């Protein structure tokens, strides 16, 4: 039963990772860039909500103001920092977003200090309410809410991409921006829109992160890594893959934690387990690609025999 509980908690945690990762996946899918400040934007979102809850506003009301603001941040980010580097390959966006990450982390540290914060107090009983499934499995209402929001967001993105003119423009620009321009699509506007959506979703993820646990100014890089692992496990650029990747990551971390505690009396296995499963998936995928490139399993086995 302990194990079943770890799987359930892992799946729910995976919903959070998927929410965190969907913006990263979207920006990679459309603009082919990986935003190294992604995790720091999540933490920035959490702090913005915190500032408002400190003034007595409820966390969910604060979110209604923070999400449009962060969408504007994403739009500005694309127009000022990212757009200039897009044509010059992968190098410049990596350098600028890494610089941005350092700036955001340290400005947050300057403003809020090193103390850990939480949005938990701002959401009332939701912070600790849970449903009892069996005597050993409790499901936190907040975790279910986050999972539900993640699924709804992915579904929404999927519908926008598949069914709307905007989605068509996004897909066309992702495929080939120059050709998209030829048929009258403003690729600059499309890019800025994608960045706005990506940053708003990551801010939403950051707010949930702040509700379910504590956060601090330098937490961004670890969130970026979780998001990246979820995206890569699920397959870059695939939205539903991101949810699957998040779940695999969450379950691995929880199982690793349990294995470490139960068999090795060590409670520090949560993070390494997730990283190791990520690296194993990566290695497995590269082996498959290599075998395929050499003409399939039969050829490779025939060569070595």
């Amino acid at each position, binding site marked *: 039963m302990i194990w079943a509980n770890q799987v359930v908690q892992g799946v729910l945690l995976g919903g959070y990772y998927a929410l965190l990762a969907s913006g990263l996946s979207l920006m990679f899918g459309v603009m082919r860039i990986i935003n190294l400040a992604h995790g720091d934007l999540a933490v920035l979102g959490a702090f913005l909500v915190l500032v408002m809850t400190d003034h007595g506003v409820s966390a969910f009301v604060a979110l209604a103001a923070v999400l449009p603001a962060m969408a504007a941040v994403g739009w500005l980010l694309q127009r000022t920092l990212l757009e200039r580097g897009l044509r010059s390959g992968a190098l410049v966006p990596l350098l600028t977003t*890494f610089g941005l990450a350092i700036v955001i982390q340290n400005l947050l540290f300057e403003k809020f200090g090193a103390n850990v914060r939480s949005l938990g107090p701002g959401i009332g009983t939701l912070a600790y309410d849970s449903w009892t499934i069996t005597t050993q499995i409790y499901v936190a209402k907040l975790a279910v809410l986050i999972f539900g929001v993640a699924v709804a967001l992915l579904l929404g993105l999927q519908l926008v991409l598949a069914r709307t003119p905007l989605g068509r423009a996004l897909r066309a620009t992702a495929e080939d921006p120059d050709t998209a321009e030829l048929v009258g699509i403003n690729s600059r506007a499309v890019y800025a829109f994608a960045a706005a959506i990506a940053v708003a979703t990551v801010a939403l993820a950051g707010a949930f992160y702040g509700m379910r646990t504590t956060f601090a100014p330098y937490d961004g*890089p670890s969130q970026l890594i979780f998001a990246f692992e979820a995206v890569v496990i699920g397959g870059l650029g695939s939205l539903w893959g991101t949810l699957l990747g998040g779940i695999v990551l969450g379950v691995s971390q929880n199982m690793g934690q349990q294995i470490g505690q139960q068999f090795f009396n060590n409670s520090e296995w949560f993070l390494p387990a997730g990283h190791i499963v990520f690296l194993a998936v990566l290695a497995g995928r590269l082996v498959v690609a290599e075998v395929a490139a050499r003409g399939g399993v039969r050829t490779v086995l025939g060569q070595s025999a």
Partner: protein
Amino acid sequence: MSESGVTVERWSASSLASSGGVASLLVALAFVPVALSANATDKLTTLFVYVILAAMWNALAGYAGLVSVGQQAFFGLGAYFAIKLANAGVGVYPTLVLGALLAGAVSIPVSWFMLRLRGGEFAIGMWVVAEVVFRLVILDHSVGGLTGTSLIGINGYSPSDRRNYNYWLTLGTAILLLGLVYWLLRSRVGASLQAIRDDEEAAASVGVRVLAGKGLIFVLAAVGCGAAGTLWLATSITFQPNSFFSVQWTAYMLFMALVGGLGTFEGPIIGAIVFFVVQDQFGDKGVWYLVGLGATAILFALLLPRGIWGTIEDRFGLRLLPVGYRLRRLVPGGGARPGEQLT
């Protein structure tokens, strides 16, 4: 005179003169501990560690197109292996060299799968590698877990001996590593690496062995960052996994290589000097200093992507330590004027 009216040259008068200057400067640097104060010796030791780090990151990003956010893995591993070896009874100074080589050995299996990743995937993939290495190191309670431990053996040397040995070892390592990079860049490997950086598919299509070239630079950079880590350990004595495996080191490397001039040989040295001065002047400003570093990196990436040295090179056609070739157009009458450059 060639038929086409152009000639290809590597050495120009200015680069010959500057090479002579560099040689005499290196000889002079060897006498610093004898001639200058203990404080100056310490500061220069720090500067040389920065030069190593900047040159290694530049070799990766500027020449092989590999933006790694995880070089702190090798920096920390070098120090970790040095501590482990010293605990096992190996002499202090040999452990510093062996630690760097072991960090390089770890990079070989890492390279097998990381180098197949592209661009941003490689960047964060390396970050994950650094995280994994850090988590595994703090599981090792023989080096004190998160608290860390000290390189106690080095207390067997008097403070002044230690300072001088550290200085000479750091200077020697920097010269050796930069020499290796210089030699590599001037060899076939250098040309193939830049071809890979500019267009991987095109390079592969004309027969460049992409993985082999990248692998060589990757392992060299790991040894270099490992060496920087062991040398940092020798001067700071305490090994705290948190600070040795901090992503801050990558931020410093990126800043130095970018500001100095990515993809130029001299750039990282300039970048290291700039960083050293900035840290000396503003290091006590804490958070604002780091904000400034990040903001400067953004500005350079967007507005001056060739960095300080790259811009000077482009504007004045200077090549002090030539790693590339350039074309000189022969003007009728025998005189030559600087033409287009090929690097």
